[in-house]
């Protein structure tokens, strides 16, 4: 291998190191903001108001094991019953989902209006798009069928919409089965870091909290002004976050609005989940990168964070490429020490600072959650990171190949459910 190629690889390594340093700095800034900065919870005390009419969509595709629990939980919330319509969106289920929805709806006249979708384009986004045409309220909340909303959750999610600039709201997702096994425990750590620190810090700093597609809500007029649901995307939530942002709407994150979900209990399921997220997110990256970069109406800090957020599922691909490049540089490098002093220094400095930044964020989340015992699992998080890195890169490669070849039809690849209907 010629020196030119080795130098080119070293330059690539230096570039990746630079990008990683930026992300590490971002982790540190968010952690410090969450710990010590001014916390923004502008809607937490909204309680005695004239609550608006809302529609709660529950997306369901073959959810017979969990849908009834979700609907029952929604029926027991403290939101005024006459102002809240529950709309289960049964998207072409082939199991007993439809029968269960109809059975529950029959017991509570007028509170549940089921939408049973028989055909049409597959995917959650397409299902929501069709269901939205039936929504008669300006506010709608979206839940996945495996979620268990608490009594006060709906009010907490609706409160931010009293701010006319808010186009979407996102709550905090908490694993229900976090202590089930090793995988669920490290996923619980990741979720804690992502919501308790990352999302809240972005809310604190006036940056871009992300709408997550569940445990959240959308203002229908904002949705329409941003072009409605796009059913040709894999991550309609990320896509919507950016379309709202670019159309002048903000997304509010309410850290207190906790809702429970099931995280994958098997590695293969986790792998499919992360591939789906990565493909959807990278699709949003391709669609919105340039428009976000050119959005002069946005403050530069908001734009910078929005761009960094778009890149989070591209970074693992870069890291894997950097590992491969460092292997080649080590094997073929002409200099005595794996590319030289600066490279060794950069690799090690990044390795310590960069890794510590992510671990610190998770540690802070556990500290604030008051669950410091599970912090001891921190070094084992590298197992989850390894799987994520490989799965995301796999998804990226197949996405690139698909883009070069024939576009594939989107399909609803939902995460496996573990809870049986009678367990809760």
């Amino acid at each position, binding site marked *: 291998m010629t020196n030119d190629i080795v130098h080119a690889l070293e330059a690539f390594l230096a570039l990746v190191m630079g990008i990683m340093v930026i992300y590490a700095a971002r982790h540190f800034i968010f952690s410090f903001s969450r710990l010590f900065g001014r916390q923004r919870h502008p809607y937490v005390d909204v309680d005695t108001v004239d609550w608006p009419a809302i529609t709660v969509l529950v997306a369901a595709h073959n959810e017979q094991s969990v849908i009834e629990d979700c609907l029952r939980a929604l029926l027991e919330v403290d939101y005024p019953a006459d102002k809240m319509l529950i709309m289960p969106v049964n998207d072409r289920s082939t199991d007993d989902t439809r029968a269960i929805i109809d059975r529950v709806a029959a017991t509570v006249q007028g509170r549940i209006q089921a939408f049973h979708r028989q055909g049409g384009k597959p995917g959650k986004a397409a299902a929501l798009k069709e269901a939205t045409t039936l929504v008669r309220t300006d506010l709608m909340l979206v839940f996945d069928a495996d979620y268990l909303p608490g009594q006060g959750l709906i009010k907490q999610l609706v409160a931010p919409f009293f701010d006319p600039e808010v186009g979407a709201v996102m709550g905090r997702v908490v694993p229900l089965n976090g202590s089930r096994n090793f995988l669920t425990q490290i996923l619980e750590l990741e979720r804690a870091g992502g919501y308790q620190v990352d999302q809240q810090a972005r809310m604190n700093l006036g940056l871009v909290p992300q709408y997550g597609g569940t445990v959240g809500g959308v203002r229908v007029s904002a949705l329409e002004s941003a072009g409605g649901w796009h059913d040709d995307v894999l991550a309609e939530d990320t896509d919507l976050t950016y379309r709202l942002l670019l159309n002048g709407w903000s997304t509010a994150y309410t850290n207190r609005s906790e809702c429970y979900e099931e995280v994958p209990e098997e590695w293969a399921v986790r792998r499919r989940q992360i591939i789906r997220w990565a493909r959807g997110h990278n699709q949003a990256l391709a669609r919105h990168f340039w428009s976000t970069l050119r959005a002069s109406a946005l403050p530069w800090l908001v734009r910078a964070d929005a761009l960094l957020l778009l890149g989070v599922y591209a970074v693992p691909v870069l890291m894997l490429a950097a590992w491969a490049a460092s292997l080649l540089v*080590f094997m073929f490098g002409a200099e005595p*020490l794996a590319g030289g*002093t600066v490279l060794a220094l950069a690799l090690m400095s990044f390795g310590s600072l960069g890794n510590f930044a992510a671990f610190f964020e998770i540690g802070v989340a556990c500290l604030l959650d008051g669950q*410091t015992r599970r912090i001891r699992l921190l070094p084992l998080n590298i197992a989850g990171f390894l799987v994520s890195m490989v799965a995301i890169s796999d998804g990226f490669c197949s996405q690139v190949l698909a883009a070069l070849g024939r576009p594939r039809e989107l399909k609803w690849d939902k995460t496996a459910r573990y809870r049986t209907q009678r367990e809760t």
Partner: protein
Amino acid sequence: MFSRPAQDPQRPPMHRALRQMDLPARRVLVALLLSGGATVALWLALPWILWGWQALMELLLRFCGIDAPVSQTYLPLAGWRISTLSVDFAGGLPDIWQLAAAALVVLALISLARWKGLRFLPAKYLALAIAVILLASMLQLTFAAGTVQRRAGDEATAQLWAGQILLLLLPGLLGCTYFILNDHLPRQLALLAASLVFVLLATPLLAVAHLVVLDTGSLLWSPLLFLLFGSLPMLMGVVAFYGWAMGWE
């Protein structure tokens, strides 16, 4: 417009979503003094640290029957010269039996990675990563041995440099991530001491371990040692101490 709930003892504890930490100036000062002082002390003690590493490595290498001189040298960095160690050890190219053994290892690892019965994906991917790195090394040493310009000692030297860098960065890292979180000086000192002792011992021991592997098994194993079994386990060890200390809070 909206304010945080007041800290009233009659009210229930604050929801975790609303919790935050205060940062008194005294704690910042202690964190700065502790991490800054430790960093300065490490820089001043560097010659002795390097002398200790050199002595320990020479003792262990003699015990293992490996002739690999460890000498003090200087690392040029931005016009400065930073003392460090380097190891002079050529290492050998693999013979046919070692290549065959490595090929069997690669096949075994790939088979393990493809085995449907192994559902623990981190193990699958680790096996695959080791196989890929080993295969790349085998291919280079079989078909392009002339392109190999590194020596076995370079890998051990890289390990020593990595440990030295981590050692010097450690007080600052802990200052930013632990010392500012609490006022318990004994805990801070305990974490600092434990982490530093770990790195002080792990650095030369890992370097010697690598040299033993390279002496026994040839340069075939050096990419694997460099990428997966060098600074990474050291970092994870430091993170483990950090996680353990955070669990005290």
